[in-house]
Structures are given as C-alpha cells and as structure tokens.
C-alpha cells in the first residue's frame, strides 16, 4: 500500500490561528492574557460559547457549551461579546502575510487558510518550508502582536496539511508526508480527521473501521460501495494518501442570515420586525456580491415542533430589501407558535447583469435606482444610516456577527 502514497515534496501549508477570537482579545487587552476567556455572540447566561481561550479549555470548557455551564467549571470565567471589526482586521493581516509567499492562497474561514507553494516563485519554493513556517509565526507576532500564535501544518494536500496543523496546539509546526503518514495516523482518532464526525463516523464503524489506520488501509472500492456509496469514497481514498481533491471553489448558491430571538415571549409583530431586519441584511449581502435571487426561504425553530420552513420561487429575479421582505413576511404567516430562532435566505442566484427585459421595466428601474441610492448612502455614512422605519429599534438586538465557514463578507 505504501507505494500508493503521494511521495512528492510537501508544498501545501495550512495556517490556523489558535482559539482565534479569544487570542485576538488577549492580544488587544493585555489584562486578559493567561486568563480563562470565552467569546459569545450575546451576553446572556444561556448563550453558546463561540471561542474559548486555551486557559479556559484547560478547565474543560468547550466551544458550543453554554456560558452558565462553563461558569460551573471555571468560576472566574471572563465572558466577552464578539468584536467582528477586530477579527476582520486580524484576518486581513494574516492574509496579507500569507500573500507575500504565494499569490495562491485559499482562506478557508476567518481563522485559517492554506498556501500552495507549488505555484509560487522558485526563490520561495526552494526554501525550507519549515523555515518559512517559523518566519510566518514571527511575522504574525511582529505585525499583530506578541500574544498571537498559530499552528502550521505542511503536507502534499490541504487535508493532511490541516491535520498536521492540529497535531501540537497551540503554536505547533508539523509536517505529514509519505514517510510518517502511518506513524501520525496511529496517534489519532477517527474523529480527529476533518470531515469525520457523527454520520461519517457511524458509516465507517458500520463496516468495521474504527481507526484512521484502518480507514487508510481500506480499498477505494469498499469506501465507495459500502461506506460512502458515492464518488466520495474514492475522494477519501485519495485524500488520505496525500493527493489533492479539495482544491475546488464552491459556487455561491444561497445567501442568508439567522437570528436567535433575545426573548422567547416576543409578540409576533416584534418577531416580524426582526425578520425584516434580516431581510435588509440579506439584501445588502446579495447586492454586495452582484447577485439577484428568484427564491426566498424562511425558517423557524420552535420548542415544540422543531424545525419549520417555507419557500417561494418567483418568475423574475429580485434584489431589493422590500421584495425579499414582501415574500418572507407572506411565508411567515404560517409560522407555528413558540419560536426561538428565525432565518431567511435567498436562493436561485444569478448575476445582476443577466437581467431579462421585463414588461414592468420602468417600475424595476425605479426600484433599482432607489436601492442603489440607499446602498450608496449607507456606504458613505455607515451601515443602516437609511433603513425602513419598521426596523428602527432592532439594531441593538440583531447585531452583525462573524460568519464562520465563509470569507465572502469579510
């Protein structure tokens, strides 16, 4: 089996900021350093933790845990509300440092990215990448601050580079290649592999695969026919051996936003106002990407019935906040009682330039001009300088948060 591993020189570097938001706060606020800190999106006892510092993690605090439960583990826990502008700045600094080594970088989320050294200049490519990794750690400290730390992983593909970056947290630097692949896999659990959790773990367990080494030693046919029942089986076979299958860009298919209600006993009118606010936010994102949409989906999570949703598809594409809200509010008429979370998204996206001429051309042109004027004013004077009166009081509740897993709006 060994000869099937990718034996090429590892030229993919994965960079991962450690406990990103908590580390940035500890950098920004020196009094927080070496203290248990967690970041939340809202200052309530029942909210979930977005990021925990290593000091908090040492007490057993985990991402997703509720603040009140974390406080039982760490009585002196410091709880901070997320500060998107700060994290956005660090993201852009990290990206600018990475771009000095190669124009071919992929930011996977706000706190991690990969550099492909195979497509950069010979001078950089011929350097020892371990030295480059240490240099990047140093630059992060020099250009952002001395409390900043990152994990660096180097391998032949993105998957193994990310795995390498997770081996020695915090501040690690590791290489995985064909010579140590089996040794590294022998130290890991199945769920340590990115993409293996929950359902995929159960699928593997069902055919007797319980460790990364057993996963590695399973042939592509079994992975296809018995485990993943699709091309994903072959992809996993290649991925585990260090061949690149993840260098793909995903087309933007939906744009949406959700909100957990600040109070479960809000009257329906107040919930609609928050939905309206979400529609304004989704509309701004839609237009910022140069897109229009034809479909609107609204959903709600309820304590009684779980997940509820409704959707509607239009014949013609739309772009304005008003058009999105008109459909969302109509769909929302059927929402069940006892809501604690709402969301709205647009789908069936197309580029703004692809408009087909409409019989209602004048009306559409007027709507477009008004929308563009409002967007221009908001860009000039700040978000939500102009918005509908219906959402006048919602801004203090429905705040802009950092989107995980997407870097489109950073």
């Amino acid at each position, binding site marked *: 089996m060994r000869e099937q591993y990718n034996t090429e020189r590892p030229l993919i570097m994965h960079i991962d900021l450690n406990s990103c938001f908590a580390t940035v706060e500890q*950098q*920004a606020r*020196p009094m*927080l350093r070496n203290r248990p800190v967690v970041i939340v999106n809202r200052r309530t*006892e029942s909210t979930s933790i977005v990021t925990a510092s290593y000091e908090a993690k040492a007490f057993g605090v985990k991402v997703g845990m509720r603040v009140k439960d974390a406080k039982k583990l760490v009585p002196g826990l410091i709880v901070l509300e997320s500060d998107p502008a*700060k994290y956005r700045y660090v993201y852009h600094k990290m990206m600018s440092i990475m771009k000095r080594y190669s124009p071919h970088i992929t930011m996977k989320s706000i706190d991690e990215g990969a550099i492909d050294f195979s497509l950069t200049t010979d001078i950089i490519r011929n350097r020892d990448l371990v030295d480059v990794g240490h240099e990047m750690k140093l630059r992060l400290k020099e*250009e952002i*601050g001395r409390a900043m730390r990152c994990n660096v992983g180097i391998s032949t593909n993105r998957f193994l580079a990310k795995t390498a970056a997770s081996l020695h947290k915090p501040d690690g630097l590791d290489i995985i290649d064909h010579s140590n692949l089996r040794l590294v896999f022998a130290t890991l659990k199945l769920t340590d592999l990115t993409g293996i959790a929950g359902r995929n773990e159960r699928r593997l367990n069902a055919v007797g695969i319980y460790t990364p080494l057993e996963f590695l030693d399973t042939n592509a046919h079994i992975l296809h026919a018995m485990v993943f029942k699709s091309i994903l089986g072959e992809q996993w076979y290649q991925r585990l051996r260090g061949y690149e299958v993840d260098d793909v860009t995903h087309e933007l298919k939906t744009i949406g936003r959700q909100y957990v209600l600040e109070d479960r006993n809000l009257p329906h009118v107040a919930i609609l106002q928050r939905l309206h606010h979400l529609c304004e936010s989704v509309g701004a994102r839609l237009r910022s990407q140069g897109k229009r949409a034809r479909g609107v989906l609204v959903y709600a999570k309820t304590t009684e019935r779980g997940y509820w949703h409704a959707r509607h598809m239009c014949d013609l594409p739309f772009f304005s906040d008003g058009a999105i809200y008109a459909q969302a509010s109509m769909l929302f008429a059927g929402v069940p009682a006892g809501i604690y979370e709402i969301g709205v998204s647009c789908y069936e996206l197309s580029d703004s330039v692809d408009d087909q001429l409409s019989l209602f051309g004048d009306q559409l042109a007027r709507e477009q001009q008004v929308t563009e004027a409002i967007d221009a004013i908001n*860009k000039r004077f*700040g978000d939500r300088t102009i918005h509908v009166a219906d959402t006048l009081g919602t801004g203090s509740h429905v705040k802009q948060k950092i989107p995980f897993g997407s870097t489109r709006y950073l």
Partner: protein
Amino acid sequence: MDDETFLNERIEVLASFGEGLNPCKPLRFRRVSGREVAISEIGLRYPTNKGMRTVHVFDVTDGGADYRLEFDTERLTWYLTREADHYA
C-alpha cells in the same frame, strides 16, 4: 456579565507619530474628570470604517485596566469608548 463600561467620552491624548508598522502611538490621555492615564501597552491598533470615515481603534492598558480609544481621522478627535477593570 456586564463587566465592561461603554463610554462616549471626548478625551485629550498625547501621542507620538513615528515610523514602523504602527506609526501612531498614544502615550497618555486625560479624561473629562481630569484624571490622567499613562498607557503602558498598546494591545492592538486596527482601522474601522464609519461609512467612508476611517476611525483607528486603539485597545490599550495602563497595567490596571483596559481602555479603548478611537481616533477619527476626518475630525481629528479622540474618544474613550470602553473601560474594563474587572479582572482583579
């Protein structure tokens, strides 16, 4: 949970403008009450946008509390917008 004080206090700031990655360094500031605070470390400096206006945010400490100062590059004003001293 409410361990920070959010402010909008106009302050006087003594700052140096030099070279390097962070050429502007606030050194000390005087609050409306007259109290002077000597800055011992700048934790992070980052720009934010209020519309087209750039406002530089400085998260700083005097060793006893953390402060947030905001410098408006268009209006050339400094504001103290946050104070946190809950860590003792």
